[in-house]
C-alpha cells in the first residue's frame, strides 16, 4: 500500500458572478514511502492547487474538492480530503508538511525565526523553553544555517533568501514528517542557491526516509531529484512515468514539447529552441477533447472526441509495452532511436 494514493482529485472554485473554474479535474497518482515524486507543469495547470488540497489549506468557502486522497502514514487508512479539520490539524506538521515557493512572504515578518521554529516543536513534540530553543538551534544547524543561536533571535527580513528557505525547511522537517510537499521551493531563489536547496532536500529525504512530493515547472529539478514524474496539463495528468523513461521517451506531445524547449549546451550551433506555441489559456474543455489540442503539432480531429483516457503507453513496434508508463493521448509520440540518442 503506497503512503499516499490520490484518486480522481477534483478542485472547483466557485466563480464570483461568473462560471466556476475547475483547477484540478481528476488527478490520480501515488507516492510510496521514501519516494520522490514530481508533479510537473506550467503555471495554471493545477499543481499548486493539488498540493494545497492535500494539506487542507484551500479556503473553506467557494471551493469544492472531490475524489479521495488516502494516507496510510499513521498506520490507519485516512482520507485527507474528508478528514475533520481538527484531525487534519494534528497531522499537519507531524505527518505531512509543506515548503512554499516564496520564502520571504511565507515567513511571518514580525515574529522572530526562533519563535516560528519552536512553535511547531511545542505544538507537536511538547518541547518548551530552553529545550525547545536548543532543538530549534539544532534544526537550523542541520539545514545548514550558520550561527543558529544568533539566527533564532533574528527576523525574516534579516536573512538572505536562501537562509529563509532553509529556515522554512527546518520548520517543515522539525517533526520528521512522513510526507513532505515542496511547492516550487527553488523558484524564488538564485541559481546557485537553488542547487544547494535541492541538495539539502535530497539529504533530508535520504536521512529520514521521508517521501517528497515535488511540485515544479522546472524539468531540471525533476531530472536531478525525482524517482517518478507526473506531468499535469490543464488540471489533468497527461503523462506519468519514471524519470528515466520520461526523459528518454516522452509519449505525450506536451511533455515532448517541454523537453524540446529546454536549451542545451550540446545542441548544434544555430539550432533554434522549439517552444510550445500559445499559452495555457489556449485550451479547450476536457469534455470537448484534449485540452492541449490547440497547441499541439500532432493535432487531428480525433483529438476532439472527449478527454482521452490515461492509459498504458502502447507498445513501440516489436518491444514490449513499458511498465508504469501512462499517457493521455490519442496518438502518442514515439521518439525514434536517433532522437533518443541525441537526448542522452
Amino acid at each position: 500500500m503506497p503512503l499516499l494514493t490520490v484518486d480522481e482529485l477534483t478542485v472547483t472554485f466557485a466563480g464570483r458572478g461568473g462560471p466556476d473554474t475547475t483547477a484540478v479535474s481528476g488527478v490520480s497518482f501515488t507516492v510510496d514511502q521514501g519516494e520522490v515524486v514530481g508533479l510537473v507543469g506550467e503555471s495554471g495547470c493545477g499543481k499548486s492547487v493539488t498540493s494545497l488540497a492535500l494539506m487542507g489549506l484551500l479556503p473553506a468557502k467557494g471551493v469544492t474538492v472531490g475524489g479521495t486522497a488516502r494516507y496510510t502514514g499513521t498506520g490507519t487508512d485516512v482520507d485527507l480530503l474528508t478528514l475533520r479539520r481538527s484531525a487534519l490539524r494534528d497531522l499537519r506538521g507531524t505527518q505531512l508538511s509543506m515548503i512554499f515557493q516564496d520564502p520571504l512572504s511565507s515567513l511571518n515578518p514580525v515574529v522572530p525565526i526562533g519563535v516560528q521554529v519552536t512553535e511547531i516543536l511545542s505544538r507537536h513534540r511538547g518541547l518548551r523553553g530552553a529545550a525547545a530553543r536548543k532543538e530549534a538551534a539544532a534544526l537550523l544547524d542541520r539545514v545548514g544555517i550558520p550561527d543558529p543561536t544568533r539566527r533564532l533571535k533574528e527576523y525574516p527580513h534579516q536573512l538572505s533568501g536562501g537562509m529563509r528557505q532553509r529556515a522554512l525547511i527546518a520548520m517543515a522537517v522539525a517533526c520528521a514528517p512522513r510526507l513532505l510537499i515542496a511547492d516550487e521551493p527553488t523558484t524564488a531563489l538564485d541559481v546557485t542557491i537553488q542547487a544547494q536547496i535541492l541538495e539539502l532536500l535530497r539529504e533530508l529525504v535520504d536521512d529520514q526516509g521521508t517521501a517528497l512530493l515535488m511540485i515544479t515547472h522546472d524539468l531540471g529539478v525533476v531530472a536531478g531529484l525525482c524517482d517518478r514524474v507526473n506531468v499535469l496539463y490543464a488540471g489533468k495528468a497527461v503523462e506519468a512515468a519514471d524519470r528515466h523513461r520520461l526523459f528518454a521517451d516522452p509519449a505525450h506531445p506536451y511533455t515532448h514539447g517541454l523537453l524540446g524547449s529546454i536549451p542545451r549546451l550540446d545542441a548544434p550551433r544555430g539550432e533554434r529552441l522549439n517552444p510550445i506555441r500559445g499559452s495555457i489559456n489556449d485550451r479547450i474543455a476536457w469534455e470537448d477533447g484534449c485540452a492541449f489540442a490547440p497547441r499541439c503539432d500532432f493535432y487531428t480531429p480525433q483529438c476532439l472526441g472527449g478527454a482521452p483516457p490515461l492509459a498504458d503507453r502502447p507498445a513501440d513496434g516489436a518491444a514490449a509495452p513499458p511498465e508504469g508508463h501512462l499517457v493521455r493521448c490519442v496518438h502518442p509520440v514515439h521518439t525514434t532511436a536517433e532522437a533518443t540518442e541525441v537526448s542522452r
Partner: protein
Amino acid sequence: MSKTTEKIDRLAELTTRTTTASGGSLWTEALRRLRSSKMALVGGTVMALFIVIAIVGPWVAPYDPTAQTWRDEVFTNRGVFIGPRGDNWLGLDHLGRDMFSRMLVGARQTLLVGVVSTVLGFVVGALVGGLSGAALAFGGKAGQRLDTVLMRFIDMMLALPSLLLAVSVAAILGQSLTTVMIAVGVIQIPVFARLLRGSMLAQAGSDYVLAARALGVRRRRIVLAHVLPNSLGPVIVQTTLALATAIIEAAALSYLGLGNPDASQPEWGVMLSQAQRFFDAEPMMAVYPALGIIITALGFTLLGEAMREALDPKLRS
C-alpha cells in the same frame, strides 16, 4: 470550405468557450465591476437623487422658504410645534416657515458647499501633491528639497484641527457661505496632496517608468503621460469621499455658529444647528435636515467605497 479551415474553426470555437474574458484596460475593468456593485448602485442613486433635488428644488418648492407664512400659528401655539399636515408635508419650523420647502431649497446650498469646497481642496491639493511627487521622483536634488518644503507645509496643515482652521479663516474673512466653503476646502488640501504624492511615487517606482526612462523618454512626458494618469484613481475615489466629509464638516461649522448667517438661504447644516435649541420639544425639526445630511453623505461614501473596491488591483480577478 476546406477541411483544414473547418478544423481550425472548430478549434477556435472550442477555445473561446473556455478562455476567460480577458480584462480590458484598468478603467474599463473598473467600470465593469462598478456596474455590478450593489454599493455603487445605492450610492449612485442617492447621489443622483440629491443632485436632481439640488437643481430643481427651488423651482418645485411649494412655498417661499424664507416666508414666515404661518408665524402667528406657531407663536400662538407656543411650545407645541406644528408637525406634518396637508399643506406642509414636513410641518413648520420655529418661525412658521414650511419645512418641506426649506429642505428642497437647502439641498442646493448644501451641494454647493460640498462641491465648491471639494473642488478647492482637490485643485490645490492635487497641485501641491503632484508637484511634490513629480519633484521628488524626477527632480533630482533640487526636487527633493522642494518636496521637503511642500510636505512640511502639508504636515503643518494636518497638525491643525479642522475646526480651528475654519475659525481662523472665518476670523479673517468674516462669517459667510464663502468662509465655510474655503474653510472646508482648506481642510481637504493635505488629504489630496498626500494621496496624489504617494500614488505618484508608487507609480514612479514601477518597472514601466524605469523602462520609459531607460528608453530616454523625456521626464515631463513620463510624468504627464504615464505617471499622472495612472496615479489619479485613488484621488478620484477620495473626491467622492471628500464630498461626504465636506457636507458633514460644514454642518459642524454651522453648529459652532460659523455657518452662513444669511437666513434667506437655508442650508441643511444651518437648519440643523438652529433646530437644536428646540430639540427636546420638537426633534423632527432637527431630524429632517440631519437625515438629509446623513443620507447624502452615506450615498457619496458608498459610491466612493464602491469605486475604491473597483479600482483596487488586489481585488481584480
